[in-house]
């Protein structure tokens, strides 16, 4: 079973942040039919983490596992595009074919 490790970097609690979090939760529930581990990191509190990961824009979603590593920047409002960005859309169709 695939383990999804996702990190969402945000800069404080703004409407855009809330939009990103709720979009992401919805995608996780609906599209990630497996175990996922989602961490929300506020760069205002943990700037060093943003430095280590070289995060520029917020919100930024990082898919650390499974490979390949992917980054999606923005409020994640477009579900289709988020799935493409996370390299999940292709995977789904592959699995459907099996």
């Amino acid at each position, binding site marked *: 079973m695939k383990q999804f490790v996702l990190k969402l*970097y*945000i*800069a*404080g609690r703004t409407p*855009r942040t809330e*939009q*990103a979090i709720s979009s992401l939760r919805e995608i996780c529930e609906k599209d990630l039919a497996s175990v996922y581990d989602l961490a929300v990191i506020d*760069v*205002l509190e943990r*700037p*060093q983490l*943003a*430095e280590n990961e*070289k*995060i*520029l*824009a*917020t*919100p*930024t979603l990082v898919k650390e596992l499974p490979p*390949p*590593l*992917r*980054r*999606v*920047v*923005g*409020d*994640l*409002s*477009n579900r289709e*595009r*988020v799935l*493409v*960005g996370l390299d999940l859309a292709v995977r789904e169709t592959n699995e459907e074919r099996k």
Partner: protein
Amino acid sequence: MSTPEQARPEHARYVEKVATGIPGFDFIADGGLPKGRTALVAGSAGSGKTIFASQFLAEGIRRHEESGVFITFEEQPLDIRRNMMSFGWDIARWEVDGVWIFVDASPEPSHEMMIVGDYDFGALLARIEHAVRAVNAKRVVLDSIGAVFSVFESSSRVRHELFRIASALREMGVTTVLTAERREEHGAPIALYGVEEFVADNVVILRNVLEDEKRRRTIEILKFRGTTHKKGEYPFTVMPSDGIIVIPLSAIELKQRSGDMRVTSGNVDLDRMCGGGLFRDSIILVSGATGTGKTLMVTHFVHGGAAAGERCLLFAFEESREQLGRNAIGWGTDFDALEEEGKLKVVCEYPESASLEDHLVRIKGYIEEFRPQRIAIDSVSALERISTVRGFREFVLAVTAFSKHKEITGLFTATTPSLTGGTSVTEAHISSITDTIVLLRYVELFGEMRRGLTVLKMRGSTHEKDIRELVIDNKGMHIGSPFRNVAGILAGNPVQIGAAEMERLDRLFPADGGL
């Protein structure tokens, strides 16, 4: 340029300046960059933006004990550390000491990224604020922001976010240098991506122009809001050991005159022709064809100075040290002995060994080090080969201004292309800068080549107007009597005139004073 600072964030009447420490820049900036503001430093590729930015931080650390934050959008910190080490800026050590910190916003090839929806640069701002706090920074650099526009496609969004960062930096009270690319060396736009729209208050432009197959670097302060700066383009050079050195040129010109003190040219006859010697802080141009006695005049100049207890610095761009020494011995002056006594220092260089700006910086360095009372450059026309007309004029202006400032007597030689008469290109370009012009000319008389000398101009003094015969023997040069019955020497076409005509001329132009 500093006064006690009160609460003055937004509407300060008096803009304080921060001395960057970049040699020459603070002079043209009337003290430095506006404190607590962001200055846009725009330039084409290879114009020296990253060096300028790094030097701003490095000098802050070295001279003012001010820490700095370097936000890099393009080069990796690793590369910057290595490249700047060549200027002697040990960034790695400063990082350990906690006075320099990188915020690495350079693109990471492994970070494949997609943009879905709206975003801001909150993370970058948080990282910058974190870094500024971590080292208690007073100086910040963003270099170079063009790269971020190519990563994030929406230029208006990026501009807006960078504006937000610039505002935040202002609130933090740090002085910021923000670099940006520009495509054209002159004209609009100032920078790509409309960067100047959000940092329009203070703009500095670096240029690297190809002119007559020669590179010319210049810096121009386009504007400083609410405060003064020098106008126009100033040349600068990048020295391996010091980084950027801006050459303020004529800016220190005409500052002072050291009165009417006269010094010897090394030849009593010439002194007399000049009305009692050369002015101490004047520049003398000796112009003549090859073999007319220019280097000999330089030798006399050295000798006369040494005899009067003065030190002379001689820059030779045409002959080797050995050859110069041999010639001088032949005329009775021992350069080796003078050098040993500390009365003389000879610097021999190939003109092509460096750019004219580099030569200028070196010449100034030697002057600072040797502290001479007189300098000689033999010849300045050799230097003209490696420069543009404008660059050359600026060079002569700069040497002239610097020498006057130091109350040094300068003797420059220039070679004329034609043997008899005519003026050199060099003369045409710099004659208005020099105080005194001495012409050496071949005169063809009765099938014989003889030499003539005249003082063409002598600023601030009367001088003899005759063209006199110059004789060179193993003791050096001797100035003889005037060519009385010849006309057209300077035009290169000497014509003998009869006794009757001579008398007529004498009546027309009665002899003025003494000679």
